[in-house]
């Protein structure tokens, strides 16, 4: 990860994350949002004050494991249903804009 572990999120960190998330931010928006995100991270960091070093970070709220599904086919969607939310379709497929912008 390129974002620093320092809870004080820098303006560059936010610009980088925005780039990864394909969100176009103006300089003014960056100035405005970077400190706000910092405040949010600081608030969450309070959790660290009660969790001692011997408590491992957790990714799941409930400690369960091995919830499996049997390998049995279940009905899904028809192609009409699947494509019903697509802005554009062609040949029974989802049509998406050009993927590469420059000739390579």
């Amino acid at each position, binding site marked *: 990860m390129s974002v620093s572990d320092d809870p004080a999120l820098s303006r560059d960190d936010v610009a980088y994350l925005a780039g990864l998330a394909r969100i176009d931010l103006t300089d003014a928006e960056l100035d405005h949002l970077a400190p706000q995100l910092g405040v949010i991270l600081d608030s969450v960091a309070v959790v660290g004050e009660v969790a001692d070093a011997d408590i491992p970070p957790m990714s799941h709220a409930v400690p369960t494991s091995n919830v499996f599904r049997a390998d049995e086919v279940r009905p899904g969607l028809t192609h009409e249903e699947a494509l019903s939310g697509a802005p554009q379709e062609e040949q029974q*497929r989802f049509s998406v804009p050009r993927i590469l912008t420059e000739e390579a």
Partner: protein
Amino acid sequence: MTTLPGLVGFDEALETFDPVMGLEVHVELDTATKMFCGCPTGFGAEPNTQVCPVCLGLPGALPVVNGAAVQSAIRIGLALNCSIAPWCRFARKNYFYPDMPKNFQTSQYDEPIAYDGFTEVDVDGDVFRVEIERAHMEEDTGKSLHVGGATGRIHGAVHSLLDYNRAGVPLIEIVTKPIEGAGARAAQVARAYVAHLRELLLSLGVSDVRMEQGSMRCDVNLSLRPVGQQTFGTRTETKNVNSLRSVERAIRFEVSRQAGVLGAGAAIVQETRHFHEDTGETTAGRVKTDAEDYRYFPEPDLTPIEATADWVEELRATLPEAPRVRRARLQQAWGASDLEMRDIVGAGALILVEQTVAAGSSPQAARKWWLSELTRRANETGVDVSELAITPADVAGIQAMVDAGRINDKLARGVFDGVLAGEGTPQEVVAARGLEVVSDDAALGAAVDRAIAASPDVADKIRAGKVAAAGALIGAVMKEMRGQADAGRVRELILSRLT
């Protein structure tokens, strides 16, 4: 594009450079359903007919792991002598590309289910040990169709069309550690490793491993370093090398290309490259400027996988015998020499010969057809012998007709032609092409009489005791019968008349 400057011959390149390879093989499991939803996984369905809210990434959908896929993953790990993680999680690999409708691929990151293994590969009779870095679970992506480009490629395309039938099909990615020390045999070792994996996965019964249908795909990492140097050179990653022959060709080409670049004093660019089946060349794709940042994080919607020791041992007990053990057993059962076994394995025909014998053929006949006749035809068309449109049962059926005297070896070749051309079963081809030998003694006898009458001098020699001279008469009869006779029977008829 076809005349690339600075290619160095493969053998010449290896006098100066030592190749280091890393192979990443993706295998689609042949489970009935996808990795995280109940959609079917069959190949070739109409576009977007095997999809549901989970694999389309619709809001509110909740994925649940396919237990059968996890079992297959653990069995693959065990077959590769890996340690199995007692506890591991799935992770989201975030990226923006329309082949995944979720904007992430569910994969595993720093907690692969299997890691630190090895497998022993036969390369022309020598055992080459390939170290396995990891085998992890993930899901396949959708299929893109690029529209508007000249060749259906992404470059120059106006837009792209997505079919998500394949999105979410269970995938195991098997990654080797750097393969060093193969030297001049690098391309062979890589090919043998992929062929070996294929055999191993087939014997596990976890995948149909059809490279031509994409259920097994290989990415080839390759770098060169000056002979004697320890540190690795800059590598390239050639994507989607999808046949055994292509693995070998891609490596030979990259060795030649990189040696040319390095020899000219230039540097290798770390990049993704594409392999072209038609030319056997690789061309530059994406340049990896920054390390990609996929922002992996543990998948919160899926529970961790806990592989208890009991479960792992239960699965270990289901493993088939190791390939080397199996080969030794078959060699003994068939009474084959070391050299014969090496040829069978080298041709990738072990399972084919085994199944042909199981279908009733003798080991000798099964070996003969697969190694001579069929391997030659596979080489001519540039496919793997297992990819030919003929089954072991067909081959056993053809041999059964030879054994019964209905056809001879020469006619059998015509039957192979017919079956490979899609004309039906061996029986149907024999009937349609009229390939059966003439077993009518009256017709044969008449032909024999004509041959004797046409060559009285030869007939006299045989009468005088020179039985070897019968060959000339047999040849004449076979010619008249257009090959459709049993030469042994013709010989009997000739000798019964003249001795």
